């Protein structure tokens, strides 16, 4: 199927107006020897039914996997509203007069993210939590000239990997891992106390990758001595019951908000977010929507602080980011309004209750959690690879395998429960162990 519209008659008009004889002449400026004469090795065009048959994706029935990407209830209206073509077929809102829908919804997203994190302002989104962390570290280097970036080893390993990639060109900046306590699973801030100074940036994930909640008061007392410190939120739903990260005084709160109305979708698209204190506003990467007015004084919105961005400041921009995850941010905004304050809290509570329910069932079966620290909705147990693969064959995904990224936790498996799981599913897992 093709989506062009020409007919024999219209083509004649088109070619005559241009002043060429045949279609191919439109490419006469391409040197002859560069023209591709072969046939592309791509299948013949397919009708929609054929495509439907080819693109069918079975899903496992019982899933206890999170690890940074979480299954949560998505109210039906999220899809209905974000599938409106006015939103999803639009480009970046460069022309505010005909993009007020995108602009106002992003402004509302920014407002809610700033409120939920307890920070001054939010940008319009980033690619994902990992690139948000990397960009935050680049901000610290640019703005505070830090030479050391401390990041907890209990931070999502993919985030640390991306951080490594992004900082590779900064040979004078060291990434230093803060170890975690092998008993509690909490970041060991004691080792940090002496080494932190104004030349360092510190990033702590809470709840951390093992699902453990960090002692944020203690963390902040140490981290505040750094040139810049940030809290990484890997699971946005946790904002429904935990103290606002902003309450601990970080310079920046960033992370992943896929859980707000975005499906797991085989790993993407995700929704990176970044919220900052006022003094970092101009150092922040990414798009920002601001309130404005038109000449009749009507409330309206437009992109603002654009001078930080690549299309104006080019090589001196705060980042190269251009497209972000606009539609995912819209989904988050719609989700938060549909679910409301009580719904968000209840959802977070259900995750925490469910995780304890499964943890107790596992303990009855003789399987203990690896760490003793207080957890939100995720915990680490041990399960060998064969067992895990057997379960997957039976349609049960028991968790995320973390033994490759944490060799110090042999057979480590990160188990997650959300409001999408049921007691029956827990029973099913226990039965097959």
């Amino acid at each position: 199927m093709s989506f062009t519209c020409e007919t024999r008659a219209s083509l004649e008009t088109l070619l005559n107006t241009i002043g060429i004889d045949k279609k191919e002449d439109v490419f006469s400026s391409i040197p002859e020897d560069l023209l591709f004469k072969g046939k592309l090795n791509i299948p013949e065009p397919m009708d929609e039914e054929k495509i439907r048959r080819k693109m069918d994706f079975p899903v496992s029935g019982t899933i206890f996997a999170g690890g940074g990407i979480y299954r949560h209830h998505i109210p039906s209206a999220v899809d209905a509203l974000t599938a409106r073509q006015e939103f999803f077929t639009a480009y970046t809102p460069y022309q505010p007069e005909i993009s007020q829908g995108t602009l106002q919804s992003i402004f509302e997203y920014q407002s809610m993210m700033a409120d939920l994190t307890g920070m001054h302002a939010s940008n319009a989104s980033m690619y994902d939590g990992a690139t948000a962390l990397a960009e935050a570290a680049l901000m610290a280097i640019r703005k505070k000239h830090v030479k050391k970036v401390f990041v907890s080893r209990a931070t999502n390993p993919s985030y640390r990997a991306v951080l490594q990639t992004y900082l590779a060109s900064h040979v004078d900046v060291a990434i230093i891992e803060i170890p975690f306590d092998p008993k509690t699973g909490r970041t060991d801030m004691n080792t940090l106390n002496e080494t932190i100074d104004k030349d360092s940036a510190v990033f702590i994930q809470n709840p951390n990758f093992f699902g453990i909640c960090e002692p944020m008061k203690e963390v902040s007392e140490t981290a505040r001595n750094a040139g810049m410190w940030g809290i990484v939120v890997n699971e946005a739903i946790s904002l429904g019951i935990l103290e606002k990260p902003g309450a601990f005084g970080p310079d920046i709160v960033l992370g992943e908000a896929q859980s707000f109305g975005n499906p797991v979708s085989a790993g993407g698209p995700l929704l990176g977010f970044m919220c900052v204190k006022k003094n970092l506003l101009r150092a922040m990467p990414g798009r920002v929507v601001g309130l404005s007015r038109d000449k009749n004084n009507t409330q309206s919105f437009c992109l603002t602080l654009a001078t930080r961005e690549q299309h104006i400041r080019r090589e001196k921009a705060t980042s190269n980011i251009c497209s972000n995850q606009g539609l995912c941010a819209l989904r988050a905004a719609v989700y938060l309004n549909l679910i409301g304050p009580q719904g968000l809290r209840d959802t977070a509570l259900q995750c925490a209750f469910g995780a304890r329910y499964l943890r107790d069932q596992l303990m009855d079966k003789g399987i203990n959690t690896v760490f003793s620290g207080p957890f939100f909705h995720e915990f680490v147990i041990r399960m060998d690879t064969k067992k895990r693969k057997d379960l997957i064959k039976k349609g049960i995904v028991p968790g995320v395998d973390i033994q490759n990224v944490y060799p110090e936790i042999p057979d480590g498996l990160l188990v997650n429960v959300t409001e999408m799981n049921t007691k029956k599913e827990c029973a099913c897992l226990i039965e097959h162990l």
Partner: protein
Amino acid sequence: MNIPTDLRYTKDHEWVRIQENMATIGITDYAQSELGDIVFVELPEVNTSVKKGGVFGTLESVKAVSDIYTPVSGVITKINDQLEDEPELVNQNCYDKAWMIVIRMDDPAEITALMDASAYEKYAGAEAK
């Protein structure tokens, strides 16, 4: 184009007011009108050492960023904090309320390289064409 006769000027359209070994610096009427509505002024901290020809700050309009250059070498003794909250002063009152920094000059002889008002008027007039 407003070009006060008691000031000195640079080719980058900064003005300089000399009082003994102190130089007060801002941008000219021509520069502010070329830049359009200024929305943000970024200035350095007091006590920063600056070299003639270096960049000491930036001016932002909605769609452009311009560097502001240091006409003389020395140490910055004062900056105009008011511009942080009221960048529009640069458009409204560029020679007075929108002064940007004061430099204690290392070498007051450097000012001889700057243009006087009539030379600047010719220079800016040519550039405007």
